[in-house]
């Protein structure tokens, strides 16, 4: 053990020999702090995500998703879209969308990723490095497009964390992020500016799917 570690832990233990009483022991098991959902999770998510300037679209199936992506890319004149997820690429390709010309995230105009879950209460996208997109794809691209399925919706952050604990157990990915809308700052006179270091725009395409 390093001497610094030894000394710090020793000081801590000496200090804690004098305990202080629990401030609110009766709240030890309190769990619900947030207002419950009043509507369907799809609507709850769409409303909260849109409020934070996220762009939401609902698709009945992969075919419709491919069509919508095609229209979006066309309207923006995108020729360089980056995607690292083989399954998404394959599914989109099968349905007629294969505009993935960008070799890397540095030069792309937009990136497409999947996600672990959507959190309806806060309008957030939960992503981890357990997925191929890794740490960089969803944050370095100027536009982030997330593809999610209706069976990936949960209400609260707590449900998201429980899901990750169940899914990964002792193998939690090295990076987890709860991303809520486009990158923003209010560092100059508390004036909201969107698109600082992360994406300027975030799209979420929610595709109908029944839990398999």
């Amino acid at each position: 053990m390093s001497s610094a570690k030894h000394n710090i832990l020793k000081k801590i233990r000496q200090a804690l020999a004098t305990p202080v009483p629990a401030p609110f022991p009766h709240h030890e098991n309190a769990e619900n702090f947030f207002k419950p959902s009043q509507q369907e999770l799809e609507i709850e998510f769409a409303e909260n995500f849109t409020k934070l300037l996220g762009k939401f679209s609902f698709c009945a199936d992969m075919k419709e998703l491919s069509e919508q992506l095609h229209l979006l890319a066309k309207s923006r004149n995108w020729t360089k879209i980056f995607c690292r997820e083989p399954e998404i690429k394959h599914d989109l390709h099968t349905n007629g969308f294969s505009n993935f010309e960008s070799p890397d995230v540095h030069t792309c105009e937009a990136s497409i990723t999947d996600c672990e879950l959507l959190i309806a209460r806060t309008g957030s996208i939960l992503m981890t490095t357990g997925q191929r997109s890794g740490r960089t794809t969803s944050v370095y691209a100027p536009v982030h497009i997330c593809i999610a399925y209706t069976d990936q919706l949960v209400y609260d952050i707590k449900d998201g964390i429980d899901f990750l604990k169940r899914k990964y157990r002792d193998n939690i990915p090295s990076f987890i992020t709860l991303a809520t809308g486009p990158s923003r700052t209010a560092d100059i006179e508390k004036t909201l500016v969107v698109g600082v270091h992360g994406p300027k725009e975030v799209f979420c395409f929610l595709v109908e799917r029944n839990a398999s």
Partner: protein
Amino acid sequence: MSESASSFIVKSQLKARDLEHRKKINFNIGKYNATVPVGKEQFSDVLLAREKAKQVKWKAIEHLDKYLEQFDIETSKRGTKVLWAETAEQALEHVGRICKEKNCRTLVKSKSMVTEEIHLNKFLEKEGIESVETDLGEYIQQLDDEPPYHIVTPAMHKSKEDVAKLFAEKLGTDPAATPEQLTLVAREKLRQKYVQAEVGVTGANFIISDIGGIAVTENEGNARLSCAWPKTHIVIAGIEKVLPSISDLALFWPLLSTFGTGQKVTVYNSIITGPKQANETDGPEEMYVILLDNGRTNLLANAAAREALYCIRCGACLNACPVYKNIGGHTYETTYSGPIGSVITPHLKDMDEYKHLSYASSLCGNCTEVCAVRINLHELLLENRRESVLVGSAGIAERIAWKAWKKASLSRSMMNMSNGKVKNWVVNKMFKSWTRSRSDLNFSQKTFNQMWEEFRSDL
């Protein structure tokens, strides 16, 4: 009087009369005050949430040794190297050694108060390493060669015109640029830096024991980029940042966001448990976590003040403090300003040198009222005052005056001896330092005893 105290008094007097400063701060804090209630709407019972949060932090701090060791074991399993530092110097030594090993020329840094505390940028400059602040507010402050004004909003004291002028001088941009344009300038400049830098440094809003991770809260994406591109990620965290479990974040993330900026949650809330793992596509090859004491164990050893370690640095007490709003963040000349800074600095550094900060309070209690984790801040300020007197750092004149005051106040006959005129003279003429920045006290012409007798006979 300590050097810090004299400087503090001079600077506060100047700032309190600076109407331009007051206007900018009121504007910024006004915007904050307008958004916080919106963030609070997400809670079914915000008081319960705050009390629960205090209970969780109590548990974390009362078992700090256990949780730090658990963190160390868990994160080491994924290849993170945990380093311990008793002092700022030891922390800087660790950073210096890692940077040398990695041949670091450029280092990107996300916003972190603990790196301010150890003066990391100054150290790196001496080592010949370019340290780039990537948070927009910190970037502005770095360009202006000024420390952060506020723990959450570093450039709160600058108007958009001030920032445009600064960018024009330092970067040659249009002096009439809007906040949107200025933000874009910073974006373009910094995007190259993330990819260039050999090392990324972040702080940690929370240390998560059960999974061996650290959590970082931000809005801009600069912290995510700082721990995505560089090959080496260094985290510097105060040992008090511990939360027992990843599950605690479901409460602490929204709480920090609401009290920090009025958001439900900030844009990015990330957890990092290690460097890139074998099956992952990108991320740093190495990750270091430096656990810093630097006086925190003094605070821990003080059972009365220990709860100050529960602070999650949301900045709410700064925004709520009438003293902070008038004298501003820089006047404190400490890394942590406002009520929480006044509470912890004397313990982290030196009671005698910094006790004056505990008197920079009207004891209105608004800091306690707004604290996200219900720390009894104004009582801790009183506690500091008491301690500073106990250790004998009050002046002789002050001690004699209070002794006389106590004697007189405890004795009804002495209180009855003089009428209002005499009392006015004693207080207003003898205690000159009281009336220097306050109007004269005006005692009642009748003593309380006289009034009480009259009141009773009227019944």
